[in-house]
């Protein structure tokens, strides 16, 4: 293999990211390029028939306490299974559906995060089940953590999914978001556990 440059090492996001990474959510005087709304209030016409969903959950530490200073990012395909390729912007414009969201866990009760989005479609050729990429940063985490959210009501598709099938069957449930219909809102709950019996399966991209 050719000579490769060494990567820049990861460092923790620390406790004080909010006034830059999630400024508007926390009420700091700085604009945010992304937040918990991954789709505009008006569903774009192309996706009008698609399911508008909420993704909510908490991140729990090794003692089972919710973590109030984590930042969660979601990145997903649109309802037709396509990742957004067009640049996001302009500033303060109507981005329609971005498929990218970010939320800090310090603004809702007990460290909750809650995103609004559209249910992703299946990415052609890549996978058999719809999913969302989840990235997690927090104080006390020296490296970003990557996992995937699958949907509990996609039983047949999940059974075909190559990555999900590579996970120890006893741990697969940690990747499932559970569907609940709350006041007519289609809500999926996805809790992350750093440790313990329900420790979330995290993924790596390099050995």
């Amino acid at each position: 293999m050719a000579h490769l440059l060494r990567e820049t090492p990861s460092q923790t996001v620390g406790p004080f990211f909010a006034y830059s990474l999630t400024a508007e959510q926390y009420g700091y005087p700085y604009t945010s390029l992304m937040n918990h709304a991954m789709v505009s209030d008006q569903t774009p016409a192309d996706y009008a028939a698609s399911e508008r969903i909420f993704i909510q959950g908490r991140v729990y530490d090794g003692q089972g306490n919710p973590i109030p200073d984590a930042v969660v990012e979601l990145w997903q395909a649109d309802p037709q299974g396509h990742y957004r390729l067009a640049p996001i912007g302009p500033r303060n414009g109507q981005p329609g559906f971005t498929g990218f969201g970010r939320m800090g866990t310090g603004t809702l009760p007990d460290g909750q995060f809650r995103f609004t989005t559209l249910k992703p479609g299946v990415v052609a050729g890549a996978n058999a089940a719809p999913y969302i990429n989840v990235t997690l940063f927090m104080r006390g985490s020296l490296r970003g953590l990557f996992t995937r959210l699958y949907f509990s009501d996609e039983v047949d598709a999940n059974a075909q999914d190559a990555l999900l099938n590579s996970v120890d069957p006893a741990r697969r449930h940690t990747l499932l978001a559970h569907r609940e219909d709350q006041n007519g809102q289609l809500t999926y709950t996805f809790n992350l556990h750093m440790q313990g019996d329900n420790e979330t399966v995290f993924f790596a991209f390099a050995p």
Partner: protein
Amino acid sequence: MPDLDVHPPHLYPAYKSTILRSPTRPLLLVPEHLRDVSMPVFGESVLGEFDHDLTKNARVNGEPIGERIKVTGRVMDQQGRGLANVLIEIWQANAAGRYVHKAEIHDAPLDPNFLGSGRVLTDAEGRYSFYTIKPGAYPWGNHYNAWRPNHIHFSVLGHHLEQRLVTQMYFPGDPLFAFDPIFQSTPVPARELLIAQFSMDHTEAEFALAYMFDMVLNGHRKTPFQ
């Protein structure tokens, strides 16, 4: 061949918060064919006029206090190819070592003209630069007399998911390196990669000292952008 293992471990007990917040089981390697090829892209139009200048973007009634500096460098993949249009988000303490954050308790002054947030996009060659105030050291609660070396936080959105990086840039010769478990968590040979270099070439006469900080993101595959 340099040692490519540059990242800190998930668990580093001297940094106490890792004890209850790090995974205990091995991570599962994602096969290359199941990785996503793209991350969201942000257009130049998303940036505000002074997003790249932390000495100007929160001014109320004057210049922020402290040593004005320029930070510049290149973002590239492991083959040294510049990565264009990468979003770099920035945050830091002020010159006195105080964060604006509401949970900050360090008894040092806030600066009414400094927020400490910024962002830039890399150009076609992967280059970026921004102006700011050199951040001060600050104490933290990890252990008795714990102080963080001067540092600037970076969040970097590369071209693929595995190029999503959060890191911190340090300044050369900081006497606190030897005492900081976050810096020390990095494998010894890789620590130098976190330290910016003073650059007389980029220093702007009568205006600002310059520091160079290149960032290398995971990956050496074909770039998805032609």
